[in-house]
């Protein structure tokens, strides 16, 4: 027997890249975030071998949760084969030996930039959203310390004023993605920049959602079965993107979130944003229940209401 026989094989990096202390910190912060839904928990945020601002917040969460038995799905703008999604998936599997999938329902850990898939996620699944800017109050104050104070006091008057001003000027809310939403009746969050189409999917969801901003060093969570409501006045309901009549050019489906593809003749074609869902439709035609049915009805009946144009 030689010393070499006894020694562990050389490893240039820790399992899943981050050292145990960093993972421990992340896990503790996640527990805190889950315990206080919607509260932004500061964390140290380690540098990763991926450029900052390219999903390093989500990646740190994923790397602290992933194990060899995990099945990981990574999407960017809804697509599994987008170059950035491919790169993150390659890194996660290289460092953890986890399996990968494009099937939303088979994933134990789903890291996403800017989308929640179309099929209803289940208990036991974790959705990790990459967040560029965790602060929903950024539009009313760019100062993090002031925003922190406003959250502490539940002082969200300026957010309501912002919405009111939009109604006065444009007769509707003009927020695009990342629509500010109230979690568990307490904290307003910026739901990463997912489109408004995806925001209702956070409400009373069976899965856990973790939102993490690596550059801004904050993470927050929407635990399973938690109320999430977009900010709306009672007489002017929140609206998702209006894509009625948009038909996917490959699958023929409607009432799922679409990418609009401008054509040379000035018209547009449409295709499903959720590439894993499209793949299922093309392969077997079998999918599990989506959040929005073929008529565009959301699965929590009554949550979304028809549009109202206020007269002001």
């Amino acid at each position, binding site marked *: 027997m030689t010393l070499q026989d006894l020694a562990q094989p050389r490893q240039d990096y820790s399992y899943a890249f981050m050292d145990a202390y960093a993972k421990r910190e992340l896990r503790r912060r996640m527990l805190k975030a889950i315990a206080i839904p919607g509260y932004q928990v500061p964390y140290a945020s*380690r540098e990763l071998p991926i450029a900052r601002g390219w999903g390093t917040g989500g990646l740190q969460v994923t790397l602290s949760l992933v194990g060899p038995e995990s099945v990981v799905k990574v999407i*960017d703008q809804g697509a599994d084969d987008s170059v*950035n999604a491919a790169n993150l998936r390659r890194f996660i599997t290289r460092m953890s030996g986890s399996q990968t999938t494009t099937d939303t329902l088979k994933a134990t850990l789903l890291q996403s930039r800017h989308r929640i898939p179309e099929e209803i996620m289940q208990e036991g699944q974790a959705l990790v959203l990459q967040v*560029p800017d965790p602060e929903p109050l950024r539009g009313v104050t760019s100062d993090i310390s002031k925003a922190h104070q406003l959250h502490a006091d539940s002082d969200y008057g300026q957010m309501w004023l912002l919405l009111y001003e939009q109604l006065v000027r444009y*007769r509707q809310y003009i927020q695009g993605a990342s629509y500010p939403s109230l979690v568990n009746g307490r904290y307003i969050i910026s739901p990463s920049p997912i489109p408004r189409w995806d925001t209702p999917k956070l409400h009373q969801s069976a899965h856990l959602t973790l939102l993490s901003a690596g550059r801004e060093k904050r993470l927050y969570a929407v635990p399973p079965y938690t109320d999430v409501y977009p900010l709306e006045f009672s007489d002017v309901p929140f609206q998702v993107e209006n894509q009625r009549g948009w038909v996917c050019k490959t699958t023929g489906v409607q009432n799922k979130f679409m990418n609009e593809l401008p054509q040379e003749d000035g018209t547009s074609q449409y295709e499903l944003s959720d590439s894993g869902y499209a793949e299922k439709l093309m392969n077997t035609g079998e999918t599990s229940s989506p959040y929005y049915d073929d008529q565009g009805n959301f699965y929590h009946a009554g949550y979304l209401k028809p549009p109202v144009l206020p007269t002001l």
Partner: protein
Amino acid sequence: MYVAVRGGEDAIQHAEQFYHAMAGKLTPQNIQLIQEQLPYLLDKVMGEGSLYAPELAALALAQTGGDLYEAVLLLRAYRSTQPRIAYAAPATADKVLTVRRISAAFKDIPGGQVLGPTLDYSHRLLRLDILDGLAEDNEATAPQAELPAPSTYPAVADWQRSQGLLPPIEANQIDPVMIPDVTTDAVLFPAPRAHRLQALARADTGGVLALGYASMRGYGLIHPTVNELRLGYAEVELKHPVTGEAFSAGRVRVSQAEVISSGGDSGKAGYQLGFAATLGWNEVKLIAASTLDMEMNNREPHPAHTEEFVMYHTEPVESSGFCIHFKLPHYVTFASSMDSVRKVISTFYSGDQPPQQELETIRQVQP
């Protein structure tokens, strides 16, 4: 194990191979050449990467074809996984083996002005003759002094303290484990002074210069006078884990700057100091950073000189990473915003009628 779609994966692998094919070849000799020829570049990368490792810095520069932000990120990403095995004793100015140390505040200072190695008074002329092979780089080296210069010098600020011009330092003994660490702590504001100085030490040279220059040009409250600027070598003094004896594990190039100004808006009589130090020799960064340190102490600094503003916006890895992330596809968020814009247009202008008057620009709060 089954693997998800591969289209994007092939593309990114080919793109990386293309990049490397267009850059120089990675060989141990080339990397060593970078290490020997470009010490100031190495210093900049090591300072911002907050990892003193000339060999690794040279490798990082070679691997990235000299893209500074990429090189800094390589060092940072490597560093973030390394265990902290020991804490070195504090390196104080009067113990640093000093090769250059000047003060603009006095004609002469205790220990003397030491010009040391500098290009400050060089004529910035390109040596085209060397490029054309007409001459060799054989400029006379400086003649040797009769007596060796002292290796250490007292701190200028100590003289001012003895004169009561500066408040005394409250030196408190602290267990190094307890020193706040910006790389492993969550950052909150107001930040502990340790966080601030660490952030400045790691800060982007260009970013610190831009904000510091804005202060100097007139947006700040102060006119910095360089009280002391020092380049030297600090001993990395450790305690032997078994015997407890102090020993030097090596020397690192360090630099520090102090700027001095009277009063500021603190309402106190006398002078105040701004301070910054970093691994490697980087004078321009430190003069700007120490100016910013003093600005941040003011009660109401310019909005671009508050602690939060400076610390967030001079972080090289974060600022460069976020800037280049805009290359990533954003078509989902753009679709969402286009939906809002279309709704507003259809509310105010019906049918195919072009807008009669320009619609007020729709300003969205977030992307």
